[in-house]
């Protein structure tokens, strides 16, 4: 066993590996270079004016309430505003570079969980081809790759059995995007099963506080900075689902806007509580595959019920589905279907469909997503029911 672990310590590349890696890097880069020219609404309406203001006002811009993203992201924009290059090129360049970092981390995860060099190298190559990844950074000028890279690092360190570092990277992901919380319940299950200590959770508030400190010093009120995610959530409330195929695409996303927005949030909280209660009843053998199963389950479940979900909010599930398929090849259809669904939603926005339905209606996709959720739920259920995966209960162990 130890030998096997040592074997997984480092990867030795032969000429064919290097050739493949180089070719895929060139292909991945070429895809992104082609797409970098697109100017989307997000760029024109948000990032570009923010960078212009940062150029004009410097760091004092951080004292204003003109931005509704976390200050950490605005620090990056501040750095970009100082660079002597076209801001969009610099912005997209940074996120494209992170695409490659994320692909490398994915390769390392594949190496860790499979021990197969071929799978590991192919995972790097395929990650660069995932359309929701290149569409997000190179085409859309979105920034989800930052928190996704941190989430990938979080999983990598969980697989390395270094929970403190894993939680640090989860905290880093949270500092950039609230969507990282979609998978938070799985951390609670890990804590119940002694894979994470309670003090590791402190990384989340600590890093968040550290991240808002410069903006607070710059002059923005502390309460505003703490509540920035709340303020973010209060925007884009014109539909219960903003092109994400979830329950509201089945029951109607334009009715009872205020009522369902509130009730839907309470509903998912209730569901998560019930699930955490049920899963915390027994102590389980925590395998890497179970970790990914749980995280993927919550990454699909939460946006399926939460209101106001955006087109790109499936990106966490996209990458987790890739890891899941790497671990268990029989689950190959999870990334295939989820990435197709997720890319379709992204393209509904990018392709300017506006209020028109895509060729496969959101409602149909919502049922597809529900199907994936049920299949994954059954996988988790079967895992938990298997006596081999059950450990003595907490009280019994102490006795």
């Amino acid at each position, binding site marked *: 066993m130890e030998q096997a672990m040592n074997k997984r310590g480092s990867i030795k590349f032969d000429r*064919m590996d290097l050739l*493949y890696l180089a*070719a*895929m890097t060139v*292909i*991945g880069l*070429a*895809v992104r270079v*082609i*797409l970098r*020219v*697109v100017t989307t609404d997000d760029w024109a309406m948000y990032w570009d004016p923010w960078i212009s203001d940062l150029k004009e006002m410097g760091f004092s811009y951080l004292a204003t309430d003109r931005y509704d993203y976390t200050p950490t992201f605005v620090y990056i924009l501040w750095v970009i505003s100082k660079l002597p290059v076209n801001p969009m090129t610099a912005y997209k360049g940074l996120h494209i570079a992170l695409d490659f970092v994320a692909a490398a981390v994915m390769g390392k995860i594949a190496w860790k969980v499979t021990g197969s*060099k*071929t799978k590991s*190298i*192919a995972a790097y*190559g*395929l990650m*660069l*081809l995932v*359309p929701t990844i*290149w569409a997000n950074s190179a*085409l859309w000028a979105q920034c989800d790759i930052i928190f996704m890279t941190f989430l990938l690092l979080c999983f990598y360190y969980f697989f390395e059995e270094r929970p403190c570092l894993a939680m640090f990277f989860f905290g880093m992901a949270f500092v950039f995007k609230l969507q990282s919380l979609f998978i938070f319940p799985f951390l609670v299950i890990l804590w119940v099963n002694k894979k994470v200590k309670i003090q590791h959770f402190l990384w989340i508030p600590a890093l968040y506080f550290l991240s808002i400190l410069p903006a607070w010093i710059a002059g923005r009120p502390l309460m505003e900075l703490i509540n920035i995610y709340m303020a973010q959530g209060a925007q884009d409330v014109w539909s219960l689902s903003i092109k994400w195929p979830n329950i509201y695409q089945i029951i109607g996303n334009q009715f009872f806007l205020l009522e369902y927005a509130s009730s839907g949030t309470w509903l998912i909280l209730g569901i998560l509580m019930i699930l955490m209660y049920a899963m915390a009843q027994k102590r389980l053998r925590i395998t890497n595959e179970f970790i990914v199963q749980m995280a993927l389950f919550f990454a699909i479940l939460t946006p399926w019920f939460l209101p106001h979900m955006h087109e790109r909010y499936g990106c966490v599930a996209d990458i987790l589905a890739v890891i899941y398929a790497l671990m268990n*090849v029989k689950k*190959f*259809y999870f990334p*295939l279907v989820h990435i*197709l669904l997720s*890319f*379709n939603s992204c*393209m*509904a926005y*990018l*392709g*300017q*469909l506006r209020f028109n339905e*895509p*060729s*496969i209606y959101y409602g149909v996709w919502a049922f597809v997503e529900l199907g994936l959720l049920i299949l994954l739920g059954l996988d988790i259920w079967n895992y938990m029911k298997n006596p081999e995966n059950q450990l003595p209960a907490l009280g019994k162990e102490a006795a």
Partner: protein
Amino acid sequence: MDDFLRDFIVKRWKIGAFTFTFLDALLAVCITGTGIFLRLPVINYTVTGPEKIGAIALDYILALLCGAIVHRCTASRNRAFLTYAILAIYPTMAANAALWNVNAVYYVILFFLGFYLYLRGFRVLSGLSVLAGTGIALYRIYQWRLALSVAYPVSLTRGWPNFYEIIPKGAFVELFDKVSLLCLAGLLLTLAYCFAKKQVRITWDLALQLFLFLAVLIPYFAPYMPPWAGYTADVAALLYFMRRKERFYMPLLHLIVSYSAYAYAMNGETKLPMVLYSVILLGILVNVGVDLYREINKGVNR
């Protein structure tokens, strides 16, 4: 008399190394005739010239070639005859040349010739044949694009219900056409890399699965695919069925998709949404992909 006739129709005749019964000969003659009579009523829809006549002749040669491939893969005379018979009246083949005068058979036959030569062990000739076929195919698609005289392409698909029917096919056309080719190149490279690293022994079964997989995969992601982009896969799916009876639904479904694409292009309307066919094709692609994966693992384990 009855017994004489009964014996006569199943009596084996031998010409050189080739044996056949009267029933075989009867089917061969009748189905060839049926194929011709099936084509005649629609032949005047487009101009009939030497190219179309040549293509119709090649339809039959392709049917014979596929019969030979099936015979080589299965060693079954009956299946080889059936392959010829089915292909002689295959709707998409007949419509492509006789009805529509597209004559894709000029390059498709080179793919199957390449495959046949591969089975016979002539690797270099096989490669050359496939390359020649690819070259002609690309040239024909380019010619067709010119004939459409579209200054700015408005759609990523020109009639083949592929991936772009699912995502908005009119978005970022002049960027996604290049991106999709790069992604396709990446997928093919990954496939080649995995094959090379696993040192898979390419059996005839594996070769057939790979052939079908590529025939479905490439037009599924390549941009600007014409309605007849599934021609090769139509025929390959039939060969696959001849090798694996339980996959009977593949040629059936692929043929429906393919002919619906023809119908949409020729009639200008479709009874069912084209996206449905894209999903069916994706299902076929996944099905063949899973079969291929299993076959590869068998090859590795050997």
